[in-house]
């Protein structure tokens, strides 16, 4: 078995190092792309991180970067850096499946804003990554195109729903990846694969061109092997976009400039409700991270936010309700799959029945039920009141602390197949990540050593809305004190 060519703590080439070398003319972007393509060819048959590779496009993009360098033009802060894009991000003329049969073969007529921003920054989109169908899942097993395997252990899931992007970064295929996070779909796979994964404040990154799952919760965010690389990518992504009506008009404060300011005097709340119920080895790592922050000068106290305990139930009513509305557009008329029927209604139903997998159907039905007459108040409106409760609880917590600390996921990566037949067991994976989606706050998962099984553990750092600068600062200190991920994690 070939060990990963890179990954946190393995002396890999970071995105920043690659961009610096390309900008200085020491490496060509074309060569960087060829090496990335070779790494994918060598190992992705086993992992299935990518659903499609855009080799020709990537080579052309890299050559444009090299031409800019040769001409003395600024090729951008991510010059020549390969990036893995989750396959729910629209790429003009390039298949965008959302991991679903219903969009198989669809080629969007436009690029997502984040795709344009990456290109403008000199980054090279290498491929589109596997995901749970329409981002519904926590293991990437709900993909219509087969599961992704965890690069740290081939018998384990990579987490999800952005499991392909997390695996691509963990395997060293690309130093950077993009995912989307509706209930933890960036942070949880980052934790399970041992990489950094960050969800920005709601509205901070444009969602124009992100295929919608649950519009009041979805955010696009970065994967990287290091906190610094994630910060660079965040700075490229963040900012106002007139094409997204929920995009925040306030300018984004660059986080990279303040990344190394440390945590002296920062008040950190170790949140019991984000560690209770987690596996003992996960709890131990979170407590070690808290100790490391205290040793670095942070003021650490334990706090309790019991309202977080209601988040899971509220989320699994709100997100399906919004999904049932958003996914009504897949009707076999304008794009994607069509299965013929004798009239339009029969065609709609035949198309949706053939095109959606079981988890998507489950959520559509759950959401339709929660919104239906007689149940709306009991389920949907009540869940929205819980959302208010969680937002108020966050506000109260942030009166006494600046940052919250907890686990990202309750356990390390689990076996492929272990939870596919038990939706509730799968949903519980999101218990620690959901509160930040309900409140729209930023949060990041930072790799912090391993569990008893040798698999990665992620520590989650949470910040108030728009305080990404502080979030990354704290994450950087956590990372600096993280135990190395032992190479004993058996690779099958």
């Amino acid at each position: 078995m070939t060990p990963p060519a890179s990954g946190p703590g393995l002396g890999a080439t970071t995105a920043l190092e690659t961009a610096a070398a390309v900008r200085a003319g020491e490496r060509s972007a074309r060569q960087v792309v060829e090496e990335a393509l070779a790494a994918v060819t060598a190992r992705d048959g086993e992992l299935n991180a990518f659903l499609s590779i855009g080799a020709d496009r990537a080579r052309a993009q890299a050559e444009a970067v090299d031409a800019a360098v040769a001409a003395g033009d600024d090729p951008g802060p991510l010059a020549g850096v390969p990036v893995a894009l989750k396959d729910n991000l629209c790429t003009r003329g390039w298949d965008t499946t959302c991991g679903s049969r219903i969009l198989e073969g669809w080629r969007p007529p436009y690029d997502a804003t984040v795709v344009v921003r990456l290109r403008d920054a000199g980054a090279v989109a290498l491929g589109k990554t596997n995901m749970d169908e329409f981002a519904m899942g926590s293991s990437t097993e709900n993909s219509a195109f087969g599961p992704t395997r965890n690069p740290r252990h081939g018998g384990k899931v990579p987490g999800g729903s952005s499991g392909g992007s997390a695996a691509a970064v963990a395997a060293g295929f690309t130093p950077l990846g993009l995912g989307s996070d509706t209930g933890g779909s960036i942070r949880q796979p980052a934790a399970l694969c041992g990489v950094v994964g960050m969800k920005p404040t709601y509205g901070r990154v444009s969602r124009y061109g992100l295929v919608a799952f649950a519009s009041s919760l979805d955010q696009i965010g970065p994967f990287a092997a290091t906190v610094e690389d994630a910060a660079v990518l965040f700075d490229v992504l963040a900012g106002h976009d007139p094409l997204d009506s929920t995009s925040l008009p306030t300018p984004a404060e660059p986080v990279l400039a303040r990344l190394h300011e440390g945590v002296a005097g920062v008040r950190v709340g170790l949140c019991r409700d984000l560690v209770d119920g987690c596996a003992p080895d996960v709890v131990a790592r979170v407590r070690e991270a808290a100790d490391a922050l205290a040793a670095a000068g942070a003021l650490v106290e334990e706090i309790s936010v019991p309202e977080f305990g209601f988040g899971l139930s509220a989320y699994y009513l709100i997100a399906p309700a919004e999904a049932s509305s958003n996914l009504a557009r897949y009707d076999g008329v304008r794009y994607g799959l069509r299965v013929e029927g004798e009239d339009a209604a029969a065609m709609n139903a035949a198309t949706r029945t053939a095109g959606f997998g079981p988890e998507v159907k489950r959520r559509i039905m759950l959401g339709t039920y929660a919104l239906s007459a007689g149940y709306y108040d009991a389920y949907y409106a009540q869940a929205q009141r819980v959302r208010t409760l969680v937002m108020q609880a966050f506000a109260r917590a942030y009166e006494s602390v600046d940052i919250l600390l907890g686990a990202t996921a309750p356990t390390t990566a689990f076996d492929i197949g272990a939870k596919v037949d038990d939706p509730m067991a799968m949903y519980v994976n999101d218990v620690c990540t959901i509160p930040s989606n309900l409140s729209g706050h930023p949060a990041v998962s930072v790799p912090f050593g391993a569990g008893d099984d040798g698999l990665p553990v992620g520590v989650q750092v949470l910040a108030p809305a728009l305080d990404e600068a502080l979030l990354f600062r704290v994450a950087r200190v956590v990372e600096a004190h993280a135990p190395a991920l032992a190479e004993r994690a058996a690779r099958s």
Partner: protein
Amino acid sequence: MSDADPGRAPLGRDDVVHVAHLARLELSDEEVELFTAQLRTVLDHAADVAALDLSHLEPSSHPIALQNVMRADEPRPSLERDEVLGAAPAVEDHRFRVPRIGGEAP
């Protein structure tokens, strides 16, 4: 929360069949059985939320206060028509073609 009556019948087969029809999904008998059991499990878990007295709180639909966003009414390029229609399963005379709509004369 009169609607959250704890004595209300749990989700049953008929509910699943009804909801599937509303969502334009066709289910086999086996799928109706499976989804009834699975959805009931999720709703049972949500009973903790349904039982809370939160009548003093306003529902939140979004994490930020949404407001109308206006822009200047200036012409600008739209998506390429042929590219958009090129993605459609069936097209006729620059329009999306669909089968007969129920009740319409053929």
